[in-house]
């Protein structure tokens, strides 16, 4: 149970190590970050979409936590062997 958040932390921390560790290069040895940003997208637009993504991901994280907590509280139940029963959608 306590291991549940660990893959997410490991994944995010690994990504941050790669992205922050590469600075000031965008493409190591070839292109600087200062050469890579778009000159035609204004800071305000960037801030707007950053806030939008933060809002969207916060809502998603809350929904995820609610659903996972419910699932854990519910437990495998009696129909544990018939795990696919009751899922009306088959997702490709």
């Amino acid at each position: 149970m306590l291991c549940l958040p660990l893959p997410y932390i490991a994944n995010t921390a690994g990504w941050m190590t790669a992205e922050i560790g590469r600075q000031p290069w965008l493409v190591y040895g070839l292109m600087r970050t200062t050469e890579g940003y778009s000159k035609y997208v204004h800071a305000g637009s960037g801030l707007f979409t950053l806030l939008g993504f933060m809002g969207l991901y916060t809502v998603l994280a809350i929904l995820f936590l609610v659903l996972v907590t419910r699932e854990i509280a519910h437990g495998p139940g009696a129909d544990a062997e018939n795990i696919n029963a009751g899922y009306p959608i088959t997702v490709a």
Partner: protein
Amino acid sequence: MLFIWFWLVAIMITAYVVLDGFDLGAGILHLFIARTNQERQTMLRTIGPVWDGNEVWLIAGGGTLYFAFPLLYASGFSGFYLPLMIVLWLLILRGIGIELRMHLEGAVWRGFFDGCFALSSILLAIFYGAALGNVVRGVPLNKDGYFFLPLWTNWRTGADPGILDWYTVIAGALALLALTIHGGSYVAVKTAGELNQRARRVASLLWPALVLVTLVSLWATLSIRRDLLTNYRRFPVLYVIPVAVGLSLIAMYLHRRRNQDKGAFLSSCAYLIFMLVGAAAAVYPNLLTSTTDPALNITIYNAGSGSYSLSYGLIWWSFGMLLAVGYFVFIYRMFRGKVA
């Protein structure tokens, strides 16, 4: 080689519109023709196994664009930054709407995600139409080949337009109508009973509107971009394409009248294909037209990758496509027939 890649990108975008178009159409109609919880589940099951695969064609098309025409990719993704981000949010919202609905019982929870699914589908259809409208109308490219469009300015076309102006709004309306009919035709193929009846009714009710808006958009396009007929004048054989659009519309009507759901759906596919191919044939070899100076147009010649990359890329593209097409044949065969 540039010619081939222009058409490969065009074909991939067309494949996206035809395939994800009916997912969006089903979403647009979701709240209107599916009334009970059971019907809404059936509606979602018609697209359930395929919608996310269909969506991948957009990513594959974008990737191919990045590979073959990097300047266009850089310019377009900067200039259309705001609408592209909004489209991305809408795609996320649609995915959430489809996936999270099932996880909890309860009318509020399900109603909320049904709403997310329907609203995002409606807005995506309008945005895709407007996006295509922007590409056809042109954008104010500067000397570096870049631009930035606000969401709207004064609603006029001309040198300094916004993402939304009267022309792109017509394009958005056309996309909304065409994809609603496309989705209705698909749902009619995949369902039986009441849902099938309502989907048929929507598709036949909207057909006259589709014919009208198609003609209006043709007139609007030629009134703001006379030069789009250049290719057609040089190669009159291209006039086959608009004729094919007309024939698809007629076929759609005839199949609909005889309640032949498959035929009507295939006619709708043909309509979308010929509309997009017709537009691509008109803009070629321009990828993005400048509203300020034709010399600043982004064309396949000034935006294309090197010829070595392009010919080598063709080999890998073919392998990738073979896999993708194989997968699509497999999945559509597996889920063929009506949803019970």
